[in-house]
């Protein structure tokens, strides 16, 4: 039995999603903006009602035809970007809120709240007011407040997105310990590959309101099949047709040779390679390297100590290359210029689509 | 009245004259206009342009109690030789206005107390003439739903509205009641006699005590129940010339007009009694 099962449509948002989550699993929903990730969370949480289909939690339908369990009866915790601590209550009262709302006596609720605050490292803030704590502390307290209710499911909607980069890692590891480490079932929406890798067991890739692929995080990130996932892990992705055991042909006619990560059948296949492994030539390279692609430069932007060059093939597909700042200046690489990108076959992974 | 009605017997006005009439209640603006007017035509604010044309109607500015609005507007039409500008407001307010320097030639009040205040302040001539009386009457809504028969026991338990005791119409109401041996138990004591009349004519109140002129002005909406003539306690309306009148002769002419047979006839049609 799935802990969560979503098979539902929401017409207004163009959503038609199918997703099953096994008990004790953390699933990260990834995909471009507007793909429907947050809508799936709202369907599960009860903030959104489906036009068709059902949403089940622990085998019981919570949303469906003639069924709608209200948000406050679902026992599903939600954590979002904003911690949304109640300003008129102390930190301890915030953490005890869920239990008090369920009718638990004050002393008992506050004792539990204190344990939860201790577990997120905010025990000494119990008497403080919400506006007196920092952003990172507020998010820790929000986690304590959510977990104090023993939710059967946790929904995380980009819980780290609003945090300072200096604070995010600590909260990330806290979430890893308290969610994944304690075997809770959770759905996580994120735009960050690091979040997906550290917090989630499985990945569900969404695009245009549909779940395109779902599976173990490592598998999906190792072999990106959609441009979004490729972007997420930061690799180039070119789609084509297998022409042999170690080569594919792109729509532009270019041939890309690589190392098959999985045996290629005869059909659609994908070549992926890191931007760092791409060399840029301003003239057609001599000595006929096996992979060279003629592109028009569409963008040059700094990326740490390097410069990322983005080029477009004649069919519009994109390839990125990382080079040093000096190199980009010396070569006079400006948008609009034609260049050749060269990548060694040993650094190209090939797998079926 | 907070927005005093101003009328003039002349309809076709010279643009400059219109401006002057328009600004007449506001002394500061008025004198500003006067400066301009002086520079252009060498006339003062309250004299009006007619002063420079002695052959035309003579201007006169009359400050009169609000209850005189209809009657005085009509009387002003009777004298083609006078160019009458009328300013209506509550009697105490008129006295205040003249004290503050408002340009008036004639003052006509609805009570002797206000006029006495004006004579004591020496802003008007000392011997005012009583030109009309206004007696208290009992009015009821059309059809007399509460079946009131007069200032008597039939008023008990009805919704009676009178003026506050401190206001002339209220004082009159209580005098009438005392003379009739009745204690009034009003549900409301209004500041303005028109508020009393309004509450009776709308049917909200069962009865009210107002002046005969107010009853007259209400037309068919109310019925008037006669009060014993001995016990009407009419208010006496005095009028006189303002000390600083710019047009004393025209002022005298207007007062004479009011006291004339013609003037008295007009007053009578509006419910006023003879002096």
């Amino acid at each position, binding site marked *: 039995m799935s802990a969560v099962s979503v098979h539902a449509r929401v017409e207004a948002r163009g959503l038609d999603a199918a997703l099953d989550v096994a008990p004790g699993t953390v699933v990260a929903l990834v995909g471009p903006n507007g793909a429907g990730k947050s809508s799936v969370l709202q369907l599960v949480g009860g903030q959104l009602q489906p036009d068709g289909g059902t949403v089940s939690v622990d085998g019981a339908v919570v949303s469906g035809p003639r069924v709608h369990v209200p948000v406050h009866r679902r026992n599903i915790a*939600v954590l979002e970007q904003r911690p949304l601590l109640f300003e008129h209550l102390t930190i301890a009262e915030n953490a005890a809120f869920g239990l008090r709302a369920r009718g638990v006596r004050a002393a008992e609720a506050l004792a539990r709240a204190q344990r939860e605050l201790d577990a997120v490292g905010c025990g000494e803030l119990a008497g403080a007011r919400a506006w007196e704590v920092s952003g990172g502390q507020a998010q820790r307290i929000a986690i304590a407040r959510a977990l104090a209710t023993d939710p059967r499911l946790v929904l995380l909607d980009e819980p780290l997105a609003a945090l300072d980069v200096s604070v995010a890692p600590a909260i990330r590891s806290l979430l890893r310990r308290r969610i994944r480490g304690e075997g809770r079932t959770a759905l996580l929406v994120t735009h960050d590959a690091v979040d997906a890798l550290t917090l989630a067991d499985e990945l569900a890739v969404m695009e245009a309101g549909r779940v395109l692929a779902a599976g173990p995080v490592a598998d999906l990130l190792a072999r990106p099949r959609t441009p979004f996932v490729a972007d997420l892990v930061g690799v180039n992705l070119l789609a084509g047709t297998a022409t042999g055991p170690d080569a594919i042909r792109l729509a532009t006619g270019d041939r890309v040779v690589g190392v098959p990560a999985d045996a290629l059948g005869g059909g659609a296949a994908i070549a992926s390679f890191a931007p760092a492994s791409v060399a840029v030539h301003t003239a057609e390279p001599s000595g006929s390297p096996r992979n060279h692609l003629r592109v028009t430069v569409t963008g040059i932007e700094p990326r740490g100590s390097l410069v990322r060059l983005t080029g477009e093939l004649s069919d519009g597909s994109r390839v990125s290359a990382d080079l040093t700042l000096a190199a980009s200046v010396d070569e006079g690489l400006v948008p609009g210029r034609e260049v050749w990108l060269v990548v060694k076959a040993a650094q190209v992974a090939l797998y079926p689509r | 009245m907070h927005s005093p009605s101003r009328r003039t017997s002349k309809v076709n006005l010279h643009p400059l004259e219109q401006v002057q009439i328009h600004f007449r209640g506001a002394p500061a603006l008025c004198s500003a206009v006067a400066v301009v007017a002086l520079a252009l035509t060498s006339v003062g604010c309250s004299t009006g342009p007619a002063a420079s044309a002695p052959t035309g109607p003579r201007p006169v500015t009359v400050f009169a109690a609000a209850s005189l609005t209809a009657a005085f507007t009509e009387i002003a039409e009777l004298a083609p030789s006078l160019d009458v500008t009328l300013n209506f407001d509550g009697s105490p307010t008129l006295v205040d206005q003249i004290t503050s320097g408002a340009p008036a030639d004639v003052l006509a009040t609805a009570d002797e107390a206000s006029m006495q205040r004006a004579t004591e302040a020496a802003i008007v001539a000392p011997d005012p003439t009583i030109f009309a009386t206004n007696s208290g009457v009992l009015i009821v809504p059309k059809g007399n739903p509460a079946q009131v028969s007069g200032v008597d026991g039939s008023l008990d338990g009805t919704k009676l509205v009178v003026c506050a005791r401190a206001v002339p119409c209220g004082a009159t109401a209580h005098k009438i009641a005392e003379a009739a041996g009745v204690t009034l138990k009003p*549900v409301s004591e209004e500041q303005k006699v028109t508020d009393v009349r309004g509450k009776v004519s709308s049917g909200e109140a069962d009865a009210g005590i107002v002046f005969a002129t107010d009853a007259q002005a209400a037309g068919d909406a109310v019925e008037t129940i006669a009060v014993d003539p001995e016990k009407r306690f009419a208010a006496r309306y005095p009028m006189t010339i303002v000390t600083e009148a710019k047009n004393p002769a025209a002022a005298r002419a207007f007062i004479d007009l009011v006291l004339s047979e013609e003037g008295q006839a007009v007053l009578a049609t509006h419910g006023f009694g003879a002096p």
Partner: protein
Amino acid sequence: MTLTTSARLGDGLPRWLFVPAALATLFLTVPLLGIAARVPWAEVPALLSTPSSVDALALSLLTCVVATLIALAIGLPLALVLARSDGRLAGVVRTLVTIPMVLPPVVSGLALLITFGRRGVLGAPLSVLGIEVGFSTVAVVMAQVFVAMPFLVTAVEGALRSSGSGFEGAAASLGASPSYTLRRVTLPLLAPSIASGSALTFARALGEFGATITFAGSLQGVTRTLPLEIYLLRELDTDAALALALVLIVVAALTVAVTGWFSRRTVRRRVP
């Protein structure tokens, strides 16, 4: 507010702007100072302790407290519903219920008279049942609620709209029922705007004149509130009118101060 060397005064604005600004300040304050100058201070205690003044003060306080409580009891729920509603109907209702705020008071009085008066749309059937509100203290309260409640509705609805529904959503996901959320989250968070909205409502009710005199009448101890008493005394006993006017000005000043204190307190909470 204390002026210190660090207090800002028109920072970064052109100097000439001070001229119209000073004019505006003078125009708004000089009439108040004028009253203060004319008030016979030595006689104020005596003027305020005459039976008619005491009755007017007591009646005004009583009716305004009741009117404010009624506005809270029914206006607050309206504000909550409006803040959490969209669509044409909500828009129409929102516009309609704020109209009394901008109506000339005498129009409000006429509207109430025509509706609840003896021959009014609702008043006539009620009159048959022996219920007549005209000339009663109830009518005073009705007039006050009619003109003042929109201030509470507007203040609270605006605050609730701008604060969004995030906190209520968080409370629901923590298992709080809508009623529990309203009691423990929404209302406490709204407390500052409820307080300032109530203060405005009280102040507006206290100043209510036109609707009262048109609809309720004027009788000492029953319907003659402070403004009506001032109106009556205005031409007869200027000193007493000024003394009572002073009371209204002081209450208005206190109301503004309370409102300002609450809004500053809110700002401090939001921006630590």
